[in-house]
């Protein structure tokens, strides 16, 4: 399932948009060094971390999208960087575990 399809199906907020790619897997984490060494590309990255470095890390891992969980919204700097880099940032009210289950269910990953 592509990110745009996923955003519609899940009803998650869409903060920024980018290239519409398939979500092939998922990764949950907030420690950026763990994420860049362990998350695989084309993943949905689920996090509660909300700062500009999230956009830099998302670019490095080539994730399909970022899903900010637990009602977190991107701050101004993250919003601006994600927008300029063309990164999808979605927002879920669920906690990370529940959001991960939603990704797994809808995307079949």
């Amino acid at each position, binding site marked *: 399932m592509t990110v745009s399809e996923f955003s519609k199906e899940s009803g998650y907020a869409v903060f920024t948009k980018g290239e519409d790619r398939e979500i092939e897997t998922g990764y949950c984490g907030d420690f*950026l060094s763990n994420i860049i060494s362990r998350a695989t590309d084309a993943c949905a990255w689920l996090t509660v971390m909300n700062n500009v*470095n999230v956009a830099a890390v998302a670019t490095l891992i080539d994730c399909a999208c970022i899903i900010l969980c637990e009602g977190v919204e991107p701050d101004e700097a993250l919003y601006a960087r994600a927008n300029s880099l063309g990164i999808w940032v979605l927002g879920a009210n669920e906690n990370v575990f529940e959001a991960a289950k939603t990704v797994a269910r809808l995307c079949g990953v």
Partner: protein
Amino acid sequence: MEDCIRLEYDVDGENFASAGHASESVKRTLKQMGVSPASVRRVAIAMYEGEINLVIHAHGGKAIAEIDPDRIDIYLKDTGPGIADVDLAMRAGYSTATENIRSLGFGAGMGLPNMKKYSDDMKIDTAVGVGTTVFLRICF
């Protein structure tokens, strides 16, 4: 044979927002050169960790990339506090980052271990009170 491409970046030590610009720029260059995605990823990760270290620990510095058709050499130079115990600093999970840095998602103690993991050669030249130069070579 194409000549070596040399890219040099100033890494601002006061500005977390700009951290990642050097590695993003090198990543774009390597992609344009047709370097394999796996190699591009290794370079981007190793260089990003280096950039972050310059910001967190050294009040900034310089990131230099020398790109050849078959490899990249990266130098991360600072005039920061130096590393007192390199073996300890290389240990996964060891970090001297402050609570404030950790709240930004850094300080997991994986910076230097990740740089080693993703490079083919790594050398650390450091002196306490003088500064540190980390050399990374990644073969494509």
